[in-house]
């Protein structure tokens, strides 16, 4: 079941399913390793989200996190 990243819980292991944001943001996220199918863990979700993807730790604005659809692993 997919849900926006912004709705994920701290510590939740997730899989990125769909990037439903502006194409510039999609490109930037992709380059940072946030591609469809990437697996990660939500470190913090207090409006803005910190997402651990592999060894990369990304800080993502809440507005953007709403457009990233993920599913629990």
């Amino acid at each position, binding site marked *: 079941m997919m849900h926006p990243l912004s709705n994920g819980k701290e510590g939740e292991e997730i899989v990125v399913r769909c990037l439903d944001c502006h194409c510039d943001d999609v490109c930037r996220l992709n380059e940072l390793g946030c591609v469809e199918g990437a697996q990660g863990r939500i470190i913090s979700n207090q409006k803005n989200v910190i997402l651990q993807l592999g060894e990369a730790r990304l800080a993502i*604005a809440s507005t953007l996190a709403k457009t990233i659809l993920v599913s629990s692993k």
Partner: protein
Amino acid sequence: MSKEPLTIALVGNPNTGKSTIFNALTGLRQKIANYPGITVEQKVGTSIIGGVLHKIIDLPGAYSLNYKKLDERIAYETLIGSYEHEEIPDLALVVVDSSNLDRNLYLATQVMDLGIPVMLILNMSDVAKGKGISINPDLISNSLGVPVVAISAKNKSDIDQLKQKISESDLEVPEPLKWGPDDSLKEAMNLLINEWIKPYTNIPESARSIEALRLISEGEFNNAFYQFEKEEKGKSTIKKARELVEKGGGNPMATEVLSRYNFIGECTSNASSITSQTKASLTDRIDAVVTHKVAGPVIFTLVLLFMFQAIFSWATPFMDMIDLLFVEGGNWVANTLPEGMLNDLLVDGVIAGLGGVVIFLPQILFLFFFIYVLEGTGYMARAAFVMDGFMTKVGLHGRSVVPLMSGFACAIPGIMATRTIENWRDRIITIMVLPFMACSARLPVYALMIAAFIPSTTILGIFTLQGITFFGLYIFGIVMAVLAAFVMKRIFPTGQQTPFIMELPAYKMPKWSVVFQNTAERGKVFITEAGKIIVAISIVLWFLASFPKTEMPVLTQTDNTEYNSSFDVTENPESYQLRHSFAGQFGKIIEPVIEPLGFDWKIGIGLITSFAAREVMVGTLNTIYSIEEEDGESSTLKEKLINDVNPETGQPVYSIATAISLMIFFALAMQCMSTIAIVKRETNSWKWPTAMFVYMTALAYLSSFIAFQIGSNL
């Protein structure tokens, strides 16, 4: 490897230790210049490797060659040899963070497509080991087809190993497109190269594949490279190429990225493994506190408070030493040189002017030290994250935090750092409010006023009223920047919002040698750049304050019967001469304008000269007060200010209200020609720097006026 000198470029993601490797390779044989036409710093040095002197270029950190930011574009253009007088590098050293291998290899595979010899440096191998990550460099090398060396840039022996590897390199060009684009992507690339890039652009052959991939992904092209009259042809070719990818079942925007990551995954799956997560959980625990929505901003405020308190108190003994040195130096010159004009000029002009500013070198060094430590530990990125929500509310962007923090050191690098903000509106608002951040040039004025007029009462056992006032001035700058941004948010139209995305680097101990080297470099710049201007202005000012030579009238019984405004019985001859000098006369002309702010003509002259650079104010005051000083007297500027009395009223020139008014004026006024020039260049218009100058200076005048009027009536 040939014995010819090579041009070697260091390329990699931000925070991979590229600059540490650059410093280790070049030592002191480096220079910082600007890229042609832009003010991004270009670090070039030389290194002797295998007995040959090679040129080393440290490129700005980049996540990708599909550039969106200026830094990334510079890395790309340097690698493809776009800059005049810059040849294509003979070897690219791609520096990757071993503890974050997959993400870093994305850029490496792009560089490998450029047709230049590549060597992969797995840096921070010690950090990776600490995280339980083990990497087999030979397997990575076999998969990628490029030489690989695992190092920790902190170890000298590892740097020697790197040099050895470079000297043994056969400079073989890696196989292009090794990551294997699928057939439809290949077809689309060929279409673009043959029908558009090759016939109509000047993109070098080696960069055509990368450029084609960029166009397919982004669906638009970079005007700077292309002939405008063929724009339509370009657009239609890009469209056709994207349709080919879609026909093959791919997403033009993501196909390349996904293919590269698949390839990287295959390369690293056997070559790297994770055995434990101990260190990562420690980072998690730290992040849980410092990025917490309540604790985060509190910690950020405490960090700033500690930083400014430390700057103020730790620097004091060093400042006293420098002060003594200049006072004694001045006395020595005065007693050694025969009496005459040169003697006076050197003692009262040059030494007094320079001494008044060099005294603040310890504080400048502490300020930069703290900024480099915060950057080096990885905290600065967390500060941006923590403040993003607040920044967005007031009309700024999370990415504005780092430029604004840089503004504490100097507005110029801060304004240049706004280039990481992709949205124009966010960027221009950040530029327009950035000069409110209390830069290091304001520090001498703040420090002087606080030391002279704010009591050093201890508060809560560890803080002093002076330290807290100092901190308060920095907070005042931040608050004014926030208010100004809040107003500007309503003036400038809202466009496409760019949400905050930032990589948070792992926490690590800063590399102390780099911190000290960079801090020393900034101290040197302060002394050489500001020092030159200060000495020059002090000399001019000394002449303006010493000529025309006026003899003080001899006091007689008749003269004393009526009050003569140009002559005061309590005045010494030096003071009389100063009041009647060119500087004195000019000061008297502007005095009515600044009098409501609590300033006398001497401060007025300081204000005028400080429009060249803020720190000149202190040198100016020191020169003026030294000229006025009676022969044989010798006291510090602080003492001179405290003891200065208005000859007409008999009241002290400086009150606490005057000091506060002056500090507020300095906090808000736009008194920096270099900042004006850089804003003109960054915005390509006089409109923005003019608006900045007018609104900041008007605000400064009004605020100082209110502060002084309230303060003096309390």
